[in-house]
């Protein structure tokens, strides 16, 4: 019962979604999934379906918004877009992430004097 309460962004999937929407503008779920796969290559073995509960949670947080519209191939599709709050959250999380990866990077770099 607890796992869905845990912060979405910790799984970093949410951060990727926000970044994608920020860069590409409104997208439907499949477009987001494709984009994440393109960027990460096949390094991220992700069930595409698990994207959708995450999208719902992001929407509940108020970071993204959704609207039903028509796709390029004239089908009914749900489009997601980043909100102002989402952009703020993205900026904060990106900074945080950069700091953590920097720290971890320094930690994990083989040190000369210890050898």
């Amino acid at each position: 019962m607890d796992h869905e309460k845990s912060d979405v962004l910790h799984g970093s999937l949410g951060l990727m979604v926000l970044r994608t929407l920020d860069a590409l503008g409104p997208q439907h779920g499949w477009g987001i999934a494709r984009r994440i796969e393109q960027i990460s290559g096949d390094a991220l073995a992700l069930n595409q379906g698990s994207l959708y509960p995450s999208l719902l949670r992001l929407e509940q947080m108020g970071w993204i918004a959704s609207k039903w519209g028509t796709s390029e191939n004239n089908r009914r599709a749900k489009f997601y877009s980043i909100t102002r709050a989402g952009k703020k959250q993205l900026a904060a999380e990106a900074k945080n992430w950069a700091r953590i990866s920097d720290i971890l990077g320094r930690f994990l770099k083989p040190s000369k004097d210890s050898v």
Partner: protein
Amino acid sequence: MTAIRVLLRRLSGLFQGRLERDMLERNMDDEFDFHVQNEVAENIRRGMSPADAQAAARRRFGGVAQVKEDYREAHSLPFFQVLWQDLRFGFRMLRRNPGFSILAVLCLTLGIGATTAVFSWIEGVLLRPFPKVVGQERMMAIAGTYRGVAGAPGDSTDISWPDLQDFERNCKLFDAFIVDRITSVTLAIGDRADRTTGSLVSANYFDALGVRPILGRGFEPAENFGRNAHPVVVISYQMWKERFHGDPSIIGRVQMLNGMPHTIVGVAPEGFYGTFVGWAMQFWVPISMQERFTRDGYQLEDRGAEWIEGYVLLKPGVSPGQAQAEISAAAMRLEHDYPATNRGRGVRLFPLWKTPFNNAGTLFPTLSVALAVVCFVLLIACANVGNLLLVKAFGRRHEMSVRLAVGAGRGRLLKQLLTEGLILSTIAAVCGVLAANWCRNLLPLLLPARGRVSMRLPGEIDWRVLAFSIGVCLISAVFFGLVPALQSGKIDLLSALKAESGGVLGGSRQALLRGGLIVIQVSLSFVLLVGAGLLLKSLTAIQNTSPGFATHGVLTTSIDLTAAGYDTGRARIFQDALADRLQSLGGVQSVAFARVTPFGYIGYSSAPIAVDGYVVAPDEDPTVEYNEIGPGYLTTMGIPLVEGREFTIADKETAPLVAVVNQAMAAKYWRGRSPVGSRVQVKGHWMQVVGIAKMSKYRNLAEAPKPFFYVAMRQNINGLNLNIRTSLGPEAMTQALLSEIHALDANLAPSEVITMQEQVDRTTAVQRVAVTMLGVFAALALLLAAIGLYGVISYTVSQRTRELGLRMALGASTSNLLRVVLFHGLALTAGGVVLGLAAALSLTRLMGTLLYNVSPRDPFAFGSAFVVMAIAALAACFLPAYRAASTDPVRALRL
């Protein structure tokens, strides 16, 4: 913030109807389908065959059902969904057993409704009795005491105005001292004249209480002073609406009150009834008008005159103890500064619910006992419902086992049981609060009407009362909901699923639980029975006490001459003429006037006395209560003379002053010598004692014998009391009296004519209320306990059918079986009685002030409680026992 938003969105998801849920599903399908189709198209573009493309896309998406479930869960709150499931299931279970549900809800409604009703009375009468008044929780009643007399409500006295002003000047912990002295007038507006009750109040009254008149003003500080200098009046909203038809230009209008024109300066807001628990005040006049509205002459500047009743408002944060300490110190200084008037006098603060001068003080013991009693009834009701649920749980053991077997956690089952309990108690709480709301105005009906004064003892259902009943509802739900849960925790899966019929689960643990509940019920009802018995005995004791005067064949009433504008001379002429006319009526033996009628609300005056040869102890304040009576009063009232004579027409204004003392006064101040012929000094005047009256009761039947004396009535026109010894009934006398009075003055009318017996009965009202209340509740408790006992015994019998059949087949006789079953029931009862006996022995002491001349351990009350309990238990057990004894062994064994 974000968390709250998520919660709100999810909550809104919870309350979606079928339509929205369908929409969610459809949108989900569309969105996922769109995704997969896009993926398929992409795969085909990459050169896959359509079949492969389809399969790859599905693999890539993952388990659709799993994703959907995740999605749905994210859309809502699992906790609430489970609760919702439980609620729906619980309702279904309750609907399936309507008999059980109705019985359980009835039991609980009774318990919760009774507790809520009593608590609403306590709230409305004792804790927050004054609607519209700001700062009630800082308000305390103030009364005087005599040294050496404990602060029991009956023993307090009033306070003088100079003393109260000194307290106000010298005490720092108080926000205000408020005078509120009840008074009544005959109010004639147009052709309708009514007796109306109002208050003499200090000028700060409305401001201190935070009550703003809706029209005009309250009183101004200057209106505290000057003998009869400020004939102004603030009237109640009710009076304004009913008697003045809501006239918006009422301010400035002149109204006659007690023979003096008063200017109406204000109208109190709706819902403000003054500050006298029990009665709704209709008008307020400033205390400078005291002489006009009390019966003792001008007392405003007299430090020795105790006539003020009132309240104090403590400063915020000041404890009652600190306030009492400060005001006691101030009273000590007054004793030192004014020994002549203040020796031996103290002052005491009372919480509002113990106010000695209104109905709060008299109802407090009754209502607190009533609260304890309804809690008992609630407990009994809960135990009963617990037992019912236990039987039902036994019937549901198969369902529970199956649910456990398919993987339901025990916690989940527990939650289900608690939810069902909660549903029951919530329905009952709603019904109970409705019932309590309906009972709000029941309290005045238990008390006798007093003349034409409207009683106001409302139950108040505010948020505190609601919070209380919600608490009661939750606690009782947990209490009886957990009973079956305790037992179901013990379900042994394998044997429960294997068992085809009873026996396996009805094991010793359950029997113990059921037995325990019955023992509790029996013991609680036993305590209530003992309480009811004690009160009944006490009431009989009170009613068998002789008041010392004749209660039959003596009528009493009063005539208000002041209101009709009589002066002293005219009043005397009227009095004599009326006495002559009444004397000559057929059936009238004697007629007498007096200032105070025994057992009335208007108290006696008291006066400092001195007797030749009696040495006053250093701390003693020899003050004795007295009545002013006309010629022939003692004869008319049937109070015998032990020695000497009573007053005659010869003892008029010009004659030497005379007094009649009672036996207790003679014994105390003359110590064995006969006082007749010697003299007594009253308020500085020497009077000759001409007779000794036999002891009688003065204020109520329960009072202890005390010194008392009578002086001859001289000038008195305010509230003249008329006592008539006659063979006529009150109705016939009212007619005769009215025509005689009208023959003298068409504008006069007597107040209600009642027998002295009625007058006495009104003072025992509180005891009768207590007896009625406790009697009703004890009967209810007994009924509930008997039902519980009956249920348990017949249930046991139905479970033991096989065993009983076997016994019978082995040669047990019918009477043998009867004995076995009866023994079981009586053993439980005996256990309950033993427990109840122990509880009652320690609890009945708390009834203290409600009991008169009865020991809290009165063997008669205990004995009769025992007998009643035993009869009820026998009755409850006999039917199931008889059924058991008539078991057909062949059928029983084949079962």
